[in-house]
C-alpha cells in the first residue's frame, strides 16, 4: 500500500521534515549498521521473517512477546523493556535503528514505545524491510554477538499515549481531531479487521467524529514516507491541523503508531497521541457510540 509520488526518490533531508533525524535511509544503515553505538533491530508483523535473512548486525524483537505485556493488555512494562534493551546490547546512549515488514508497522510500534519510555536516539529505516530486500542489499541469517548492557528507562511519557477516558472526552470537541488510520472498509464497518486477519471486535464502524486517513496514504509506493508538504496536505485536508489535540487509532495500535510517527516527528505536530486501545477496545465497549 502506498502511492507513486514525486517525493519518492528525494533524500530525507530534502523532504522538509520537522525532525529528519528520526528517519534514516537504507544506504545510511548499510554504512552504519556496524558502528559502535548503533544497534539495528528488526520488528516484523511476520515474526519468522527475520530468520529468512536480515540486515547484517540486526537483532529481532517479537512484537507479540517482547513489546507488550503478555499477562494484561498493555505495552511492555518498564522493567521488561529495560531487560530487553540490556540483553540487546543497548544502553541509554545507543542509537537504535528500527525497521520491519508491512512498511514498518511494528517498527513504528517499537519506536512509539521507546519514546514513551524516553529513549533519546531512536530512528526508523525509511522503506523498511521491503525496500532493503528490493534494493538487493546484503542479508544474513546469522544473529549478531551481543554484549549485554545496563539500561535505565524513564517513567512512561503519557503525553504520547491516549487512554479510553481521554478519547471519550474528545467527542464533539472542535479543537481535537481523531484520526482513524484503518482501511475505508473497516472505517465504515463493512469489515471488522483487515481482510484475512482475525476479527477482534464485536461491532464495526468508527469513533464518532473521527476522520479516515489510512496509514498507507503517508507512504510512497516504495514504502518511504512522503514529503512534509504532501503529508501536510493529506492531514490538513481532513481538518487534522497542528493547533489541535490529535489522537490516532487503528485496530490494535500499530498502524496508528505509523501515522503518529508521521504527525509527531515528520510534521512536528505538538500534541499527538497514539490510542493503542484502538478499535479493539472501542468496538468491544458496552454502550460506546459508534458511527458507520
Amino acid at each position, binding site marked *: *500500500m*502506498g502511492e507513486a509520488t514525486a517525493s519518492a526518490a528525494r533524500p530525507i533531508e530534502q523532504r522538509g521534515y520537522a525532525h529528519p533525524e528520526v528517519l534514516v535511509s537504507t544506504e545510511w544503515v548499510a554504512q552504519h549498521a556496524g558502528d559502535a553505538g548503533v544497534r539495528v533491530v528488526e520488528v516484523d508483523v511476520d515474526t519468522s521473517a527475520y530468520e529468512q535473512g536480515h540486515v547484517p548486525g540486526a537483532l529481532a524483537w517479537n512484537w507479540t512477546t517482547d513489546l507488550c505485556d503478555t499477562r494484561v493488555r498493555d505495552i511492555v512494562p518498564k522493567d521488561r523493556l529495560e531487560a530487553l534493551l540490556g540483553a540487546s546490547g543497548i544502553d541509554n546512549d545507543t542509537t537504535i535503528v528500527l525497521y520491519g515488514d508491512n512498511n514498518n508497522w511494528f517498527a513504528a510500534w517499537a519506536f512509539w514505545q521507546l519514546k514513551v519510555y524516553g529513549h533519546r536516539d531512536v530512528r526508523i529505516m525509511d522503506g523498511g524491510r521491503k525496500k532493503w530486500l528490493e534494493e538487493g542489499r546484503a542479508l544474513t541469517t546469522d544473529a549478531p554477538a551481543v554484549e549485554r548492557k545496563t539500561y535505565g528507562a524513564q517513567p512512561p511519557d503519557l503525553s504520547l499515549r491516549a487512554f479510553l477516558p481521554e478519547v471519550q472526552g474528545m467527542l464533539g470537541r472542535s479543537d481535537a481531531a481523531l484520526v482513524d488510520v484503518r482501511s*475505508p472498509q473497516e472505517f465504515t464497518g463493512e469489515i471488522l479487521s483487515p481482510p*484475512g486477519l482475525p476479527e477482534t471486535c464485536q461491532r464495526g464502524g468508527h469513533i464518532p467524529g473521527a476522520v479516515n486517513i489510512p496509514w498507507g496514504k503517508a507512504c510512497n509506493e516504495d514504502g518511504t514516507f512522503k514529503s512534509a508538504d504532501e503529508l501536510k496536505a493529506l492531514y490538513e485536508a481532513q481538518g487534522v491541523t497542528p493547533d489541535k489535540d490529535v489522537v490516532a487509532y487503528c485496530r490494535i495500535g500499530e498502524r496508528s503508531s505509523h501515522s503518529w510517527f508521521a504527525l509527531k516527528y515528520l510534521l512536528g505536530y505538538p500534541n499527538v497521541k497514539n490510542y493503542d486501545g484502538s478499535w479493539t477496545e472501542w468496538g468491544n465497549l458496552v454502550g460506546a457510540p459508534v458511527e458507520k
Partner: protein
Amino acid sequence: MSTLKAEDFQTRDLTIEGWQVRVTSYRIGDRFSCNVDGVDSGARIARGTGATREEAERSALEKTERRLAATRRFPV
C-alpha cells in the same frame, strides 16, 4: 558471516474471494518466499516458503484463500 541477497522478484495482483491482493515472490539463497498482501489494507495476509517459487506461492495462496474466505462483510 554468510552474505545473501533477495533476488528474482516477481509481483502480480490477483482477486481472491473478492479482495484484491498483491503477490510478491523472491529468492534468498536457495529458498523462495512468497508474501500476499491486501492491496487496500496494506496488511500481510499470508506468507509461504519453498524450494521453488511455485511451492512458495502455492503455500501462501492456499492460506490466503482460506483466510479471505473467512472474512465477513457486513452491510453498510
